[in-house]
């Protein structure tokens, strides 16, 4: 798979998913709490680790959606 034949010019609405990633992490007031905890891990920690996975999935979605 080579990047050269991919058509990518200008804006795509799919990029808004990236904005969602920023919203999910840039307001620590939303997730700065102990409860609900997961197997003893405070929400603050497991939430942000979960967002890593969500962000990776969102980026993959944007990749496939804008590929052609």
């Amino acid at each position, binding site marked *: *798979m*080579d*990047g*050269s034949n*991919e058509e*990518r*010019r200008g804006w795509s609405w799919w*990029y808004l998913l*990236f904005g969602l*990633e*920023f919203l999910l*992490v*840039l*307001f*620590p*007031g939303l997730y*700065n*709490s*102990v409860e609900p*905890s997961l*197997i*003893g*891990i*405070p929400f*603050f*920690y497991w939430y*942000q*680790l979960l*967002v*890593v*996975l969500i*962000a*990776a999935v969102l*980026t*993959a979605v*944007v*990749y496939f959606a804008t590929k052609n």
Partner: protein
Amino acid sequence: MQSIDWVATTIFVALFLFITWLGFWAARWRRGDLDQLHEWGLGGRRFGTLITWFLVGGDLYTAYTFIAVPALAFGAGAVAFYAVPYTILIYPILFLVFPRLWAVCKKHGYITAGDFVRGRFGNRWLALAISLTGIVATLPYIALQLVGIQVVVGGLGIGGGGGLIGDLPLLVAFLILAAFTYSSGLRAPASIAVVKDILIYFTAIVAVIVIPTQLGGFGKIFAALPTAKVLLATPPANSWGSFSAYATLALGSALALFLYPHSLTGILSASSGGAIRRNAALLPGYSFVLGLLTLLGLFALAAGVATMPQFAQGFKQYGASFAVPALFIHSFPSWFVGIAFAAIGVGALVPAAIMSIAAANLYTRNIYREFVNKNATDKQEAKMAKLVSLIVKVGALAFILFLSPQYAVELQLLGGVWIIQTLPAVLLGVFTRKLNDWALLVGWAIGMGVGTWMAFSANLSSTFPLSIGGFGLPGYAAFYALILNLVVTIVLTPVFNAMSKKVVFDETVAADYH
């Protein structure tokens, strides 16, 4: 004082010998003419998705990161977790900006950010400012990688007494690094990164399963921590307090990361824009591991390693950086400690090699060729870069041996404040040529000056206590200085454009960016 752990040391040395062999072998990997700068310094731009994943991962998630971020968690608690949102936010930026930058750099044979700015804006002084910022921000970063090696070697029980014998392992590691970088260029860290990353993933995953089991589960660990360290402090009524600090640290660090010369070197060595985009979705694997390793700092706190007598010497010598090594020695058998420490030690060599290559590329392309020897041949250029990569590393080593590592930590902090000031010219330059080159230069200078002042006035901590109309917005000095830089650049652009009627120079065209 701990004695030397021979089992761990033997495994550590064996892994080091293996990667030394690998580093020299790499010169023959995907063979190219190493007398060409783009072959030596960018691996011929031939790395596909998988190798790019290892290389950029090994490049960005450095030994220093793996020591310093858990150390921050150990000392300051929850705030250290900003490393997670930070390394989430870098990937949208990677996805949107860098395939374009890769394309234009490939088309015009650019190797550095300075090359791009020179071509895009036609202003050699702006390019010089960008290049010098890159070099200055990189040097303390290399020094800190060597500190990473020092800490794990100290953890093996070697060199606790200091002095020449104590520095010997560092000197040996340094010689290995210098020799394979000189002979193999970027191919060396690319091949070593594969080994390093496998070791790191293995170590992190085992540690996060085994240590909580030993300590009686996550619930017990977090219950054992001081309450103030588990969460961010709730901001007072008239301030966003720790929340704005946390958010701006994450955002500012994310914006700065890909401006570092070593990040760009890693990315430009990819074989296509598609390989970069695919990596934007695959690289978060490392962010997850970094999050797990950050938790190790909290585990170390809960395990109480700081007060154990056998670690007193280590903590005295290396401070909080010793938290993770101490936790490993406390929790694991020697053979595993050897693997874990090798992961960190080898992990220092990968970014240190890439950083020295990146700094050498900048010097060679944007200072030597631009200002010293305009007619340098390709061979002279490659030779100069190899030589400079050595000088840069000797400088970093001297820094660590003769000055306090604390200076390196402070300079690295300032480096983040400085490198982000190249954002308007480099990142925005990828999308638009509308900003005036002299306005960019003035904005850069003001951002550098004010950012440095903010960092010093906050006693060289990263958070500046900004207050607007009595409302507190403490935040990352680099981020606030960048906003000022952008405002100055935008305001001055029409002014400078009106003053000079000269035709805008731009050797790139829109089609070059795809």
